[in-house]
């Protein structure tokens, strides 16, 4: 005997097309104020990103990973989180930090090489996780803990197409499926893992379909369509909160910048490809929609762009006027209390730096 015992479908979701035209049947109901807030956060993320790139080129911050092009994926999802929810970002998630209310100077501080930048206080974002694909497991464990403690909180794990090749990604998906953990996996398929195109990352037609193997819902969404990302994430978060388990959302997008400021993407991809994606810019698309809907006027859009730049400049000033911490900071927060050998090593450092602070 031979018979089909299972079959699966993968859906693609797009609400706003590349021209900013809205599919009315699929449009999420979002009040004008909220739409403006989303637009503002995307502008702020873009302004931060452009400034950070400039600061790096001038030697005023260190190596930086640009987010340009992925603003819709991040704002469209993170804006849906409630206060008690926790986001687990990778290193390109400035939009997530910004959407959750992180002061911009903290981000400059972090990318400027100061550990105090990840001192986020009440902002409910887990600190930047750099080893690719390792942190979705933390999101799964935290989701389990929230469910166990009946906290009504969900977690969102952000990562890229490259991460889906890592073992930990698969372990995270598997654990989440088995535990029915309230977690949403946001895969930003920006199509390039440094120089490796998505086509060399996997033979699978979509990344979304990887969820099927773990008994999990998934969808592929146009990652440059903020309303599409919003809709998909809203449904995923609601399901998670209702105890209906995890979802994988593949946001098909494009990394418009280099991998980091240490990379030169011209070595491995064509200018034409980049230009084609620049035409699909998530901010331009959303702006067109908001203008057509009357939520935004040309004048207001211009004012908001100016304001975003001003906010960023203000943050740069705050960042650059932040005094350097005393050297002993490197001994802080390694253990809850400093063991004897580290006490002795701290004394060595103090002798070397002539610091008298304790």
């Amino acid at each position, binding site marked *: 005997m031979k018979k089909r015992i299972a079959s699966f479908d993968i859906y693609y979701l797009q609400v706003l097309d590349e021209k900013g035209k809205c599919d009315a049947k699929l449009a999420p109901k979002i009040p004008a104020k909220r739409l403006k807030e989303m637009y503002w956060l995307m502008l702020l993320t873009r302004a931060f990103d452009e400034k950070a790139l400039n600061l790096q080129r001038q030697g005023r911050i260190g190596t930086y990973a640009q987010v340009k092009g992925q603003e819709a994926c991040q704002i469209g999802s993170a804006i849906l989180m409630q206060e008690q929810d*926790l986001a687990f970002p990778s290193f390109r998630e400035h939009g997530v930090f910004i959407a959750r209310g992180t002061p911009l100077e903290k981000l400059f501080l972090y990318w400027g090489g100061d*550990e*105090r930048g*990840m*001192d*986020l*206080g009440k902002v409910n974002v*887990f*600190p*930047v*996780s750099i*080893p690719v694909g*390792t*942190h979705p*497991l*933390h*999101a*799964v*464990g*935290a*989701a*389990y*803990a*929230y469910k*166990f*403690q009946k906290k009504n909180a969900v*977690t969102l794990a952000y990562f890229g197409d490259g991460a889906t090749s890592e*073992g*930990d990604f698969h*372990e*995270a998906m*598997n*654990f989440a499926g*088995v535990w029915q953990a309230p977690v949403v996996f946001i895969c930003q398929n920006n199509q390039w893992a440094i120089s490796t195109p998505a086509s060399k990352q996997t033979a699978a037609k979509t990344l979304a379909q990887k969820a099927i193997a773990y008994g999990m819902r998934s969808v592929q969404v146009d990652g440059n369509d903020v309303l599409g990302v919003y809709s998909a994430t809203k449904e995923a978060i609601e399901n998670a909160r209702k105890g209906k388990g995890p979802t994988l959302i593949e946001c098909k997008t494009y990394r418009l910048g280099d991998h980091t400021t240490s990379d030169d993407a011209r070595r491995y991809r064509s200018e034409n490809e980049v230009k084609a994606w620049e035409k699909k810019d998530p901010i331009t698309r959303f702006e067109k929609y908001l203008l057509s809907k009357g939520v935004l006027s040309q004048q207001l859009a211009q004012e908001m762009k100016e304001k975003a730049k001003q906010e960023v400049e203000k943050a740069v000033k705050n960042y650059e006027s932040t005094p350097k911490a005393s050297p002993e900071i490197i001994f*802080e*927060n*390694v*253990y*809850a209390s400093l*063991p*004897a*050998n*580290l006490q002795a090593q701290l004394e060595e450092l103090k002798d070397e730096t002539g610091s008298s602070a304790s």
Partner: protein
Amino acid sequence: MAELNMIEAIRSALRAEMKLDKKVVLLGEDIGVNGGVFRVTEGLQKEFGKERVIDTPLAESGIVGSAIGMAIAGLKPVAEIQFEGFIFPALDQLVNHAARIRKRSQGKFHCQLVVRCPIGGGIRALEHHSDSPETYLAHTPGLKVVMPSTPYDAKGLLASAIRDPDPVVFFEPKKIYRAIKEELPDEHYTIPLGKARVVKEGHDLTLITYGSLVLTAAQVAEDLREELDIELIDLRTLSPLDEETIISSVKKTGKAVVVHEAPRTLGFASEIIARINEKALYHLEAPVARVTSYDLPVPLAKYEDYFFPSKERITNAIRKVMKEARSNYGV
């Protein structure tokens, strides 16, 4: 008073801590229904439920990585890695994350997490079931590493590890899981991390070891008692190391032998001897000797006795140090 072996003592610590604190949860492969391959967690799932004693999928990195997530969200997970040879997939999570999350988040998040793991040889097992990877972990800032050598210590140290606000790797020397029984007090107790135990006081030579070799070393000290008064130190915690106990003992005896099951190069003896050199070199009457396994992969069962430090090897090292001290100082 109840007479318990190490497995029962560990289970007793787990049960006591789970009763005291609802945030303590266990996770690992086969730990629930089956009670763990060594039966350490036997009966605990029945007692505390499937949400607190979690049978996980077979994935070590997944176990430790998700335990990290539980810890930062307010639980106190105790993860079990079934054998030390399988801890390596989880090293990324331990070294790159558990050890650094307090630092990375400037203290907002921390990992109150214990990873329990059997360790060491001597049970004639398959490949990957007889290794001693403690140094990989002890080398990592941000982790604590503990290895008990008796049922009493296992219970008290594990209770402390579970209550410790930082991630602790708790290695359990599987060779002596059932080797000895001890009378344990009925009431629950803790033993502080970072404190070595002077198993036997002595004046002639300091013998330093940890884990299952504490028993072997104690037998050697006993065998030699007519000719030598050996001070035996059980480190109990490798990180943070109780340097004070080691240094004050070596200053007293002027001679030291360090013993461990792990291979020699960059083994834990290297660190101990370096610290003795820094703090007690001028008290030494002879070079410190180390007795370790060879710098080889652990041989399969038929040959493992040639590999691990034996009573004879330890005795020879002690005699050699004593002889050198005598010829140097005429004592």
